[in-house]
């Protein structure tokens, strides 16, 4: 091989640098596409749905006439379903996370639980819908109710809550536990008064991300057979004739935001597209603000915590 001249070497370096620059541009373009999609989506839904985004839209039920349709039953349903989901997923997920980090011995039972949680995260959400259809709706007899939907979504986000709880707990240094136990606290007292409070911001972040995922989930709720046309609200406790019980609403039929959007996008009449856009915008605002809170919390945490 003949040695290269200075010019050749310079040309080689220039070529290498040019390739670096081209690749960087490519990377920025790919990132920009992602950003563009978010803007295009939110912008399009806002512009298209703007006409419908008024108070009436939030206080009216769905209707056969596009211009009179609203999302009252949908947003109420979404909030109630999320309430059930949080009530089920948070205690279960946090307890499971604490068990795996603080109590579990290294044995095959623990291994099975851990492998299982990893694998559940890869199971398509519609499969959870089929599980709920077979177990909650028919075997337990919950029917197509808020309870069935809430529990289904709770199972779906359980891995997210467990994993974030574990990560938050793992970040707490061992000296905290040792200090607590050295003054005579039991394992549970250590968890109750030290581990859980210190892990709280991390757990909260995971819960918000989980709920933001659940709020937009459509497929499992359609699979349990939730109706799409609901022009009434679940019974308010202690009202009506005869008076509704405190928990009667959990067995009520319902609709949620994503189902209402799906219903409107799948109609041939383009007048409903405007409703879909408006409802989609409301849903996006809900999801994006939840995610933004979670991102902010995580950012704050990274800045504040110094052990």
């Amino acid at each position: 091989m003949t040695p290269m001249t200075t010019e050749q070497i310079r040309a080689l370096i220039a070529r290498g640098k040019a390739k670096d620059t081209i690749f960087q541009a490519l990377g920025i373009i790919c990132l920009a596409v992602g950003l563009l999609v978010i803007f295009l989506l939110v912008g399009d839904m806002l512009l298209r749905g703007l006409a419908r985004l008024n108070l009436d839209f939030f206080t009216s039920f769905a209707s056969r006439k596009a211009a009179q349709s609203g999302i009252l039953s949908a947003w109420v349903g979404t909030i109630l379903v999320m309430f059930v989901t949080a009530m089920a997923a948070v205690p279960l997920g946090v307890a499971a996370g604490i068990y795996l980090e603080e109590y579990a011995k290294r044995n095959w039972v623990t291994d099975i639980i851990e492998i299982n949680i990893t694998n559940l995260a890869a199971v398509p959400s519609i499969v959870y819908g089929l599980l709920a259809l077979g177990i909650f709706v028919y075997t337990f007899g919950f029917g197509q109710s808020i309870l069935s939907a809430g529990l289904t979504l709770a199972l779906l986000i359980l891995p997210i809550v467990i994993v974030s709880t574990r990560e938050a707990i793992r970040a707490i240094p061992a000296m905290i536990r040792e200090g607590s136990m050295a003054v005579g606290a039991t394992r549970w007292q250590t968890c109750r008064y030290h581990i859980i409070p210190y892990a709280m911001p991390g757990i909260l972040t995971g819960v918000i991300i989980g709920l933001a995922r659940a709020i937009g989930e459509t497929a499992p709720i359609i699979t349990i057979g939730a109706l799409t046309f609901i022009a009434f609200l679940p019974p308010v406790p202690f009202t009506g004739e005869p008076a509704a019980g405190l928990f009667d609403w959990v067995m009520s039929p319902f609709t949620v935001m994503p189902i209402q959007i799906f219903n409107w996008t799948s109609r041939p009449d383009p007048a409903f597209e405007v409703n879909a856009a408006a409802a989609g915008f409301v849903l996006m605002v809900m999801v994006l603000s939840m995610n933004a809170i979670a991102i902010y919390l995580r950012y704050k945490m990274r800045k504040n915590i110094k052990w």
Partner: protein
Amino acid sequence: MRNVTERLIEFVLFAAATVSVLTTVGIVYVLVSESIQFFQHVSIVDFLTDNQWTPLFDDAHYGIMVLISGTLVSSGVALLVAIPMGTIIAIYLSEFANSKVREVAKPVLELLGGIPTIVFGYFALLIVTPLLQKIFPELPGFSLLSAGLVMGIMIVPYIASLSEDAMRAVPMSMREGSYAMGATKLYTALHVVVPAAVSGLAASYILGISRAVGETMILAVAAGMQPNLTWNPMEPAATITSYIVQVALGDLPHGSIGYQTIFAAGLTLLLITLAFNIAGQWLRRRFREAY
């Protein structure tokens, strides 16, 4: 007393941890038990070889390949978008971008990954399809192509963030060695970092495939729900997931054969996902590099 309480609490916590195992058992039980009843009416050979899927017609055919073709074509389109884009973003963020860009880019990707799939469905049907129709005038209103493209965008954040984690885990000394030999950043990224992180990249692709195969709402909204044995992304077609949605939207009696088809379809979906995941774990072990 103290010991009894402690034991009790430990037991309660353990019970909570087993819920995830019970979920898996429940999924397998429901899918398998309903599928067994389904396969008492339909032979497995017909299920796998018939080229028509018309379970709700009088002349019922149960050829799952029809739905699998839709699933594979849409996933293929999605991965053609998501794998290159996700990998490029990951390489850019881990090897080129400074920490400021990363601080901005990561939350943006997270937000993109958090958009509800029904909203992506709306995006595919009402924005992407009309745009594509300007390029391909013969494209129908529902197509696997536009659903797949949007699915690809949806999957990019998963692939990008997992791949970036894998590449950042490659020790700095390896890059320094390569720079010391006179290699450029790009050469180092492609010939040193990527090969070293290949098991992590494979894992992120497998997760992307799982997401694509299991994605439901984008396809239900934008790909049409007509069963269609095709390998052409320009056509509308049903997938395994959108078929389940379509049946669930109707009013099928519990225990009928139509009701059982969605569990057989769900079992097929789960087996496909499982197969990809096992392949992924094998790949990971095969190419794992330890430092």
